[in-house]
């Protein structure tokens, strides 16, 4: 900007001087357009071989003094330079064409700096903020699904505002987090779940505090070369989020709104009351034949006083009772502008999503101000401020006693939702064993709120010492306050069984984290052949977290939520914890002749979490790249426009799984007889350290035909050792385990990104496709073959998320019984026969995006696919019980209703089916076996958007700059063979070891929204 001012001034002086020199000098006025005919502001115009210059204004207009015969040079970043010889006319109109080569020269954020994409030696994926800004999802991570290679984003449920699981290049950790580090505008942010409210398996999402429409771009750093600058937090990859910043010029106001509806992607069809009764009677009949019992005809329906042939028998649609079509809407307004010295971007946004399940919802209010000020020619100061408030209305779900979906799963079709007097029906008055409470009561009458207030503020200063040396300082605070309030009403069984008269709960968490970063950027001028760019800096971060938790009972009535009215406080406590990180880092980029590129990176991290003997870790990486297309033999190739080969190796760490004080031997405080006590809480491990990941990466970037087609392929081997695992120790110590660095896991894979763009006059087609093949394998464990749940095992030679179930060979057509595989040959079928039968990891996954633009219309279609993953349908294993009766008494209470597929069960000798006969007593049908292991592959129409941008003629009449209308569908179509609610599901979102298990989990949602964007 200084330069521009100077050139203005110079131009002005020269103009003045020139008027004395030559009378032929005249004032030329003109306008600059882009290829679409839109005015281009900010274009530099100089008179060739002079110092006279000008710049086009916001409407593309400019004035400049020149003589006839002078050459005007028009230049603008991303566009081809144009030269115009001044003729006799005093008006000039110029159209600049986009420079496809320069377009490829995208500048990307790499952590502590920016780099031209062509200079990159490491591996990263870039996502344009515009592509994800206004999807009907609550958080930026959800918007990434299917859009970046090597990045597996899975949404464990359709719970609004809930946390996702992102794994960049595989699952690197078993017990610690495999989630990436999130860095917002250079500041590592607290991204873990902070709510303490019990919800079943789903977590809240700290990333939902960020308004996705504020995002300018996202970079996903993948290989060690890219992530080593984040040292002990880089092993799971790094997601760099850059928010929008101000631009000089006339202020621009943008208003965006969308409104729509969501519903669940699928419901399961269950048996009607008739079919349910028939099945129960059939179960008794089958037992008579197979087990020699002597139940009467219609044994069950007679016992229950129901007639299966009664035409008036009603069937309760339990899914219909808890699911709904829910509105979703979002509004944001942003103001961008500034002058040469100060620029701003500010926004205010509101997002409101009702849950597709009764009792759920998510709202966000957020405001942002990003400010850049040029104080003088050596000092820039700026700040970024985000304030947001989210409110999640939550219910219990997944594998929990009072989960809404789980109680619904096998809901008794004979039981009404409400009694005739309007009260909720009590499942204990009916003939099912399944429900522990009426799920609609739980959904509607439980109050469970998580309210998060977040302030993320940064102030930074950039000092320019010389062209070669710059210094940047940034200090940031990340403050989060989370308040959970819950009330279980006295009419709920959970309360009445405990004679509690209402159960109240309050907890709060306050996290205050500060970071200060200081770094030099050094880029000396070494002539044409050599280029050097170095970063050298320090970072300190400390976090302080405080907790409050209170439980109360005995409420006077169910209309209250606050604990002040509770007659009895059953527990109350406060506590706190701290951690700190101090770091020193460098990066060196060297380029020779624009052909050979080398990057060396290193970071030394000291963490308060590490044991005393291991306080600091050093994480180095190195990478090289060869820009083959710059070599003489390719330089002029018409076919290959870009060819780069890359290679990198480095070591990064993961310290997330270490408790803040995990390395120390501690005594905690407890109580006995209302007195304080000291109890041993952990043994010490002075050598406790980070998980260490070495990664080797080879990559190729290929551009064909002027980069109309681009291919990027990467192969990587990622080996994580020193895994943080609980080492089982002899129990005679009073402890079962300590956290220790043991174990090894490997991820290796191939990822491809193919993208292309073709213009056919008015029609532009842009398309991209990405696919990743990632193989995960546990190399070593503290103890091999650890069974970690009813369905999962950790075993060397197998991936994380391996299923461990009883195997079977289908149904015997003669007897209708399952043909089990008695693997331990003990004549019994039980837990001891479990064996490794598959895993939850996809063979490959990816997505595609196609955008067609035609005369203001645009159509964007995004597909996502995940292939080869298996899902353990734990839900169906539990509810498809084919009449199994848990109680030993003579009155029969089955576990619940069955899937309609159970109508295809075996009934008579000779029936060939995969569903065994019904029975009142054969528990073996229910065993956790491969019967319930299903192919969870799916292809999903993730997003389809049809939009129209009004033409400038129309806009001029309306006196606005931009008007866009669009219709968007999310998850409209899912192709899968899975028989549960949705194949993209995990009952335990917090634990990847248990991935791919579906038990009472809320399915994904699909939505349709209509949106409008107005720019003024």
């Amino acid at each position, binding site marked *: 900007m200084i330069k521009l001012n100077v050139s203005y001034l110079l131009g002005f002086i020269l103009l003045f001087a020139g008027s004395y020199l030559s009378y032929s000098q005249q004032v030329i006025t003109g306008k600059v357009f882009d290829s679409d005919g839109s005015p281009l502001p900010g274009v530099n115009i100089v008179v060739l071989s002079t110092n006279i210059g000008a710049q086009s204004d916001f409407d593309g207009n400019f004035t400049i003094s020149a003589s006839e015969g002078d050459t005007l040079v028009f230049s603008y970043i991303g566009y081809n330079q144009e030269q115009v010889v001044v003729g006799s006319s005093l008006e000039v109109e110029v159209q600049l064409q986009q420079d496809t080569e320069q377009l490829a020269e995208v500048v990307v954020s790499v952590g502590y700096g920016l780099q031209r994409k062509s200079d990159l030696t490491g591996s990263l994926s870039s996502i344009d903020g515009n592509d994800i800004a206004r999807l009907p999802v609550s958080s930026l991570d959800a918007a990434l699904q299917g859009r970046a290679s090597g990045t597996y984003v899975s949404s464990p449920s359709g719970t609004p505002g809930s946390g996702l699981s992102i794994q960049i290049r595989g699952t690197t950790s078993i017990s610690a987090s495999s989630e990436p580090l999130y860095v917002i505008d250079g500041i590592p942010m607290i991204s873990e779940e902070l709510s303490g409210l019990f919800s079943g398996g789903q977590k809240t999402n700290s990333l939902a505090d960020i308004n996705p429409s504020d995002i300018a771009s996202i970079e996903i750093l993948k290989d060690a070369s890219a992530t080593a600058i984040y040292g002990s937090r880089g092993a799971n990859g790094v997601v760099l989020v850059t928010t929008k910043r101000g631009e000089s010029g006339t202020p621009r106001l943008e208003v965006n709104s969308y409104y729509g509806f969501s519903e669940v992607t699928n419901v399961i069809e269950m048996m009607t009351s008739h079919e349910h009764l028939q099945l129960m009677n059939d179960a008794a009949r089958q037992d008579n034949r197979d087990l020699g019992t002597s139940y009467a005809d219609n044994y069950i329906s007679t016992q229950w006083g129901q007639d299966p042939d009664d035409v008036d028998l009603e069937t309760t649609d339990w899914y219909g009772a808890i699911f709904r079509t829910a509105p979703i809407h979002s509004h944001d307004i942003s103001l961008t502008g500034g002058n040469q010295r100060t620029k701003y971007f500010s926004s205010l946004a509101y997002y409101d999503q009702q849950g597709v399940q009764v009792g759920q919802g998510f709202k966000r209010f957020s405001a942002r101000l990003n400010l850049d000020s040029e104080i003088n020619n050596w000092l820039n100061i700026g700040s970024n401020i985000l304030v947001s408030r989210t409110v999640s209305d939550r219910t219990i779900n997944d594998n929990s006693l009072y989960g809404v979906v789980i109680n619904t799963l096998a809901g008794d079709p004979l039981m009404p939702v409400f009694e005739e007097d309007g009260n909720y029906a009590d499942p204990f008055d009916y003939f099912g064993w399944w429900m522990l409470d009426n799920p609609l009561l739980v959904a509607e009458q439980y109050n469970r709120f998580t309210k998060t207030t977040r302030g993320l503020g940064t102030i930074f200063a950039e000092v320019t010492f010389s062209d070669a040396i710059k210094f940047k300082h940034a200090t940031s605070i990340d403050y989060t306050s989370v308040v959970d309030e819950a009330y279980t009403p006295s009419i709920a069984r959970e309360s009445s069984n405990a004679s509690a008269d209402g159960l109240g709960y309050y907890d709060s968490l306050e996290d205050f984290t500060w970071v200060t970063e200081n770094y030099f950027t050094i880029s000396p001028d070494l002539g044409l052949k050599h280029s050097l760019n170095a970063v050298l800096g320090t970072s300190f971060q400390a976090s302080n977290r405080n907790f409050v938790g209170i439980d109360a009972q005995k409420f006077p009535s169910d209309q209250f939520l606050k604990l002040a009215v509770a007659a009895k406080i059953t527990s109350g406590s406060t506590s706190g914890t701290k951690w700190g990180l101090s770091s020193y880092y460098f990066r060196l980029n060297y380029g020779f002749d624009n052909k050979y590129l080398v990057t060396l990176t290193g970071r030394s991290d000291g963490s308060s979490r590490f044991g005393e003997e291991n306080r600091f870790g050093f994480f180095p990486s190195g990478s090289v790249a060869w820009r083959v297309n710059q070599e003489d033999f390719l330089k002029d190739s018409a076919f290959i426009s870009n060819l780069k080969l890359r290679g990198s190796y480095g070591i990064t760490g993961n310290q997330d799984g270490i408790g803040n004080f995990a390395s120390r031997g501690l005594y905690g405080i407890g109580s006995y007889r209302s007195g304080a006590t000291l109890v041993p809480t952990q043994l010490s491990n002075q050598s406790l350290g980070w998980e260490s990941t070495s990664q080797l990466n080879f990559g190729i970037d290929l551009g064909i035909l002027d980069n109309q087609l681009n291919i990027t392929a990467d192969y990587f081997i990622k080996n994580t050792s020193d895994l943080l695992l609980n080492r089982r120790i002899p129990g005679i110590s009073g402890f079962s385990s300590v956290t220790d660095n043991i174990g090894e896991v490997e991820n290796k894979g191939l990822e491809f990104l193919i993208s292309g763009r073709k213009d056919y006059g008015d029609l532009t087609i842009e398309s991209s496709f990405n696919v990743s093949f990632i193989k995960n394998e546990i190399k070593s464990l503290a*103890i091999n073959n650890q069974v970690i749940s009813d369905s999962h095992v950790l075993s060397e030679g197998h991936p994380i998320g391996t299923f461990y179930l009883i195997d079977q060979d289908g149904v015997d057509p003669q007897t209708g019984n399952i043909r089990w595989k008695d693997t331990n040959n003990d004549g019994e079928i039980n837990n001891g026969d479990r064996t490794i039968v598959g895993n939850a990891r996809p063979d490959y996954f990816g997505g595609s995006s196609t955008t067609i633009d035609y005369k203001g219309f645009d159509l964007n279609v995004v597909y996502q696919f995940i292939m080869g993953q298996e899902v353990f349908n734990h839900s169906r294993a539990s509810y498809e019980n084919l009449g199994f009766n848990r109680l030993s008494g003579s009155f029969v209470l089955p576990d619940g209703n069955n899937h309609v597929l159970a109508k295809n069960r075996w009934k008579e000798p000779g029936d060939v089916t995969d569903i065994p006969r019904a029975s009142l007593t054969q528990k073996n049908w229910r065993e956790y076996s491969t019967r319930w292991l299903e192919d969870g592959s799916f292809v999903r129409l993730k997003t389809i958007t049809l939009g129209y941008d009004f033409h400038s003629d129309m806009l001029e009449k309306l006196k606005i700059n931009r008007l866009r209308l669009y219709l968007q569908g999310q998850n409209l179509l899912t192709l899968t063979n899975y028989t549960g609610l949705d194949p993209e599901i995990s009952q335990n979102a917090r634990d990847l070891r248990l991935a791919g298990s579906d038990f009472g989990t809320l399915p994904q949602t699909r939505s349709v929204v209509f949106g409008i964007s107005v720019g003024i």
Partner: protein
Amino acid sequence: MKKTFTFLLFSVFIFSCDVLEPDPQTSLPTATALVDAGSAQGVLSGIYSSMQDQDYYGSYYVLTPDLLADNSVYEGFYDSQQELDKKVVPINNLWITNCWVDIYEVINSANFLISKLAEIEASDRILGEALTLRALAYFDLLRIFGEHYNLDSAYGLPLLLEPIPNNDFNEIPDLSRSSVSETYGQIIKDLDQAIPLLSGTSTTGTFSEWGALSLRARVNLYRKNYQGAFDDANKVITEGGFSLESSLESIYNTTDKTSESIFEVEYNDQDQSSFNTNLIRRDEFNADASLVEFFQDGDNRSGLLTVRSGKNKSAKYPSGGNDNNAKVLRLAEIYLIRSEAAVFKDNNHNAGISDLNILRERAGLPAIESLQSHDAYIDALLYERRAELNFEGHRFFDLVRLDKSGEILELEDFRKILPIPKEELQVSEALTQNPGYPTE
């Protein structure tokens, strides 16, 4: 200006170096946890608080012996309890896996306290309680994992008597199992040392002299030292100042101590047990039909079983606030110990009748005049013990030590004790599995 500004920025960053040494806010480093009499009392109370664990006196240790026997039937979800109820306990059973560690936690705290008490000034009582707690913990472990009924058996326990050096997991010793008689020897040694130290104490929420004596009576009964058991029980009955509650309900319908309480692990509504949750709220540990049918006509103790939601349940832990205490030692049991010890020490099957009759009278049953044989006495004793102490953690052990588990429970011999947990065998070279059970 530029220099000043840069200097200011640098000073900010030098300022912020001290981030690596935060102190925990709710716990103490082991090295400074126990330094004086006050913290010794804290660590002692901590041992009781470790005993409150759900797997131990929080409920499972008390309820499991009835599940393993014929008093209780499990009608809940958990595999672990289902396995115990079926009496076919795999080596990876969750409860045995946890309970081994949880009881050793009590032992380790006691070891730490006992060793530190050599260095600091504190009252004798603290040492006495610590020794008694260690004895109770070893005894409770022995009943589950060791061949407690066979004094010649090699299958006792690994005896850890010192704290783990430096609290460092690398220094946990790899101990092999001591014999059953060595294990009993250690338990009695601790109790012998503790009892004089506890002289004059009389609390029920912590171990008093009477609690320690009662425990020694019980241990002596198990190890067949009948004279010792008789003497200790007799002393508690005659000198302890305890008396039987006149009504049965008043033993249980309270969350406070009663006149017959000797040692209880206490709970309150903020520091909860889980008896009521397991028995009533979650409908899991229900009463076995055979227990319901077993009572003689007129035995008022059958009134402590109720029917709720169609299930038979014990009414011994009625408080929904889960502040029900674990009644570890109460006077009624001491009468039963004295009775049994009297019969066995003199080999006189009528020597224990009067003590049985004291309990029968309270229960509303006629007195036993005399018995025909030793077997008849055993039957009468087992009737009283089952009627009096059901759901209080005795039945399985009684059947095993009186050699009735084969007859009544149809139990294979090796299942009289539970297996050493698989996870322990995986991390210890020296530890050996109980006979009959797999090692992996």
